[in-house]
């Protein structure tokens, strides 16, 4: 698997990934029906690598949610015909973190996603029924579910990284 260095949009350049331990990679067709099973498999491998505890269960649920939303975005907004190309998802472990990576050849993510500080899609008290949002939560859910998100466009491919810290899980 080709190595790449991500630019951490939140905290500056990421640490080079020479010390990564690969947990697994899965290649899936870009269609919604493939997402659930692929996420179950990859998150299951992460869970097995981390061991059993309530804290690990919670962390894996957060990864499941973030990864599902990222894959939904790739399929829905990538602009590629359904099922015609593959999305690669992988999990890596390094000291104190688990990182989930996604690679695909769809359209680049819009830059405004990384500037979004508030969450305009959230319901507010007293909001008229007809104005309730029926979507637009994906990026907010991703950012709320993991500790770090990084993205880079290299050539014609997207590289997205979702990272959770695991030191507190090991202590639990």
């Amino acid at each position, binding site marked *: 698997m080709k190595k790449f260095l991500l630019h951490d949009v939140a905290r500056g350049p990421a640490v080079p990934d020479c010390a990564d331990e690969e947990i697994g990679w899965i290649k899936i067709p870009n269609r*919604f*029906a493939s*997402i*659930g099973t692929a996420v179950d498999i990859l998150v299951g491998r992460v869970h097995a690598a981390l061991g059993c505890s309530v804290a690990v269960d919670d962390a894996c*649920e957060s990864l*499941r*949610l973030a990864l*599902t*939303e990222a894959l*939904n975005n790739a*399929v*829905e907004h990538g602009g590629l015909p359904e099922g015609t190309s593959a999305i690669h998802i992988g999990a890596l472990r390094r000291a104190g973190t688990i990182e989930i990576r996604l690679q695909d050849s769809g359209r680049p993510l819009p830059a405004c996603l990384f500037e979004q500080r508030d969450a305009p*899609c*959230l*319901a*507010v*008290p007293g*909001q008229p*029924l*007809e104005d*309730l*949002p*029926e*979507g637009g*939560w*994906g990026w*907010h*859910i991703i950012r*709320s*579910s993991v500790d770090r998100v990084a993205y880079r466009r290299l050539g014609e491919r997207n590289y997205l990284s979702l990272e959770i810290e695991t030191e507190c899980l090991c202590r639990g």
Partner: protein
Amino acid sequence: MELSVRSDGTRTVVSLPGPRLDASRSGDFKRQMVELIDSGARRIVLDLSEVDFIDSSGLGAVVGCFKHVGRHGTLELACLSPAVDKIFDLTRMNRVFTIHEEVPSA
């Protein structure tokens, strides 16, 4: 997916088959719910006890059904797993829906 629907009096309890309500199933779910609402169901309780995961697409479908019922009826939720409860919390939809720990008595 096939919804399990039972009516007691004026109330309709809809149970979703598990284990997930995601982008691959949300369209089918919403279509069946809209048919149910259009056929006259007005007081609906959505039993989510079999569902252990909902993504934003599934949540959007639930909100769409809630809006389709409108002010002339109710759509309440019951039996949310911790993972399902989390997405309602993250999107603040837990402030919009009435959520029961168990399916309430008729």
